[in-house]
């Protein structure tokens, strides 16, 4: 496995942030250690093993009743927003 600058920037862009030149270099430097750790992971034979997604794999049956329990005020809903306009959250025009 290898991580080059270009790929690292693709990964960052996919998660909507930027990395400085130094940060990219750090990642490349540290990737040496990480990739050796990942090799330890990959050296394990997992054929026929299922992914473990939850700590406990008992199924549940609980479903929420369809009743209104918790609704907050418009004031609370937009209280943490940077900009608001007539009860909406305001952002620069979004390109579809």
């Amino acid at each position, binding site marked *: 496995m290898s991580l080059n600058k270009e790929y690292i920037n693709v990964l960052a862009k996919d998660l909507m942030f930027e990395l400085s030149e130094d940060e990219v270099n750090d990642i490349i430097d540290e990737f040496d250690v990480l990739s050796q750790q990942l090799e330890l992971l990959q050296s394990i034979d997992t054929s026929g093993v299922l992914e473990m997604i939850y700590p406990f794999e008992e199924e549940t049956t609980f*479903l929420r009743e*369809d009743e209104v329990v918790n609704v907050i005020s418009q004031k609370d*809903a937009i209280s943490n927003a940077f900009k608001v*306009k007539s009860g909406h*959250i305001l952002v620069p025009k979004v390109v579809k």
Partner: protein
Amino acid sequence: MAYKVVIGIEIHCELKTKTKMFSSAPLSFAQTPNSCVNEVDLAHPGTLPCVNKNAIKYAIMACSAFNLEIDTLVKFDRKNYFYTDLPKGYQITQQFHPIGRNGFIDINVDGNSKRINIERLHMEEDTAKQFHFNDETLIDYNRAGTPLVEIVSDPDMTSGVEAVAYISKIQEILLYLGVSDVKMEQGSMRCDINISLMKQDAEKLGTKVEIKNLNSLSNVLKAVEFEISRQSDMLDNAELIVQETRRFDETTKSTVSMRKKEGNVDYKYFPEPNIFPIRLPLDWVNEIVNNLPELPDARRVRYHDVYALEEYDANVLVSNKLLADFYELVMQDCDDGKICANWIISELIAQLSKTNQSIATMKCDSKNFANLINMITKKEISGKQAKQIFAQVVDGENCIELVKSSGMKQISDEGAILQIVIDVLNDNPQSIEDFKNGKDRAIGFLVGQVMKRSKGQANPSMANQLVSAQIKNY
């Protein structure tokens, strides 16, 4: 050159639950912005999803109506992407384990039935609504988290007409199930149409184009037909069709490119760790499946069997559920299904559209309407008289009172009419003479006199019968 057309359709429907898919905030349509939400819908830090029981129930009902195999172990996954209308930065959906698989519905086109296979039905949640202006966008989270089902067909359709038949069938069934409003204009039902063309003898499917922004069935038809001719022309000219998403433009009645597909977007799907797999109790599922509301096809058959309606009449009623429901209410107090259907289909629809009303808003209740139909079938009033008061009846006025106050009650008592007929005959010897001399018109004159003397209330056909019979006695 004529090409083989291949159409597959993805339909998103908002479910008509009381609360959101994963939160206990209410659903809303056109409410005050950001007033039907809680912290979960806004994806505030630390919030967790909690699955709505009724949303699952509605999905099961839909699966059952579309003949899908139901997976009773419900699982959810995350679809990751960033967009301003997606508060969590991922959508909870069912990528790997849809609740329904491998079903079908039968559509009817030009009197022929055709089976359209449905690949899957899965549950997910809606995004926030954005209002775009010149240089700003306003976000309303009321819609965020509204339960959705997505229904994905196989590419089994070959024309715009079939596409429309498929969508309207899905629409009709969901409406009869009572699980969705299925209003395309309001966005509670949204259709994406995938369409590709191929040479008749080709084995490989052509390049797929996706059409969005279809807010009515008639636009679906126009868009598909436009797209078929656009792609045909391109293929005729040996042009390359690119994989893209197009939207239907209402003003030009054509499809325009929205975006080209630059490879597939990687949504990095993975199972939702905050929702353990949910095992649906089998008896609960069976209870839902066994107690489905009557579906439209079954209702058509019943209208034929019980009310002796012709296919056309049954279709007109069933395809408008409110109308059909009203018809059934009226029929609780009525005997003649056929006459009742006629009055609803021809008179009521016309009257409502003339006055800009709907079944839902009209003031006339079913009992009043039934009384009117009964007076017609019992010949207490004539059809002509009924039409005279029809507008008032639809406006909610009591039809019995109306008939009484306008003195238009028809006399159908044979003895009473006979007395008038005898009087009229006695008073008009000349007419009897004319009749005997072969002037049949005399009958008409005499019936007219009977009607006049009864102030128009005599049943005309009875008057006619009695005059013809009695005159022979002179």
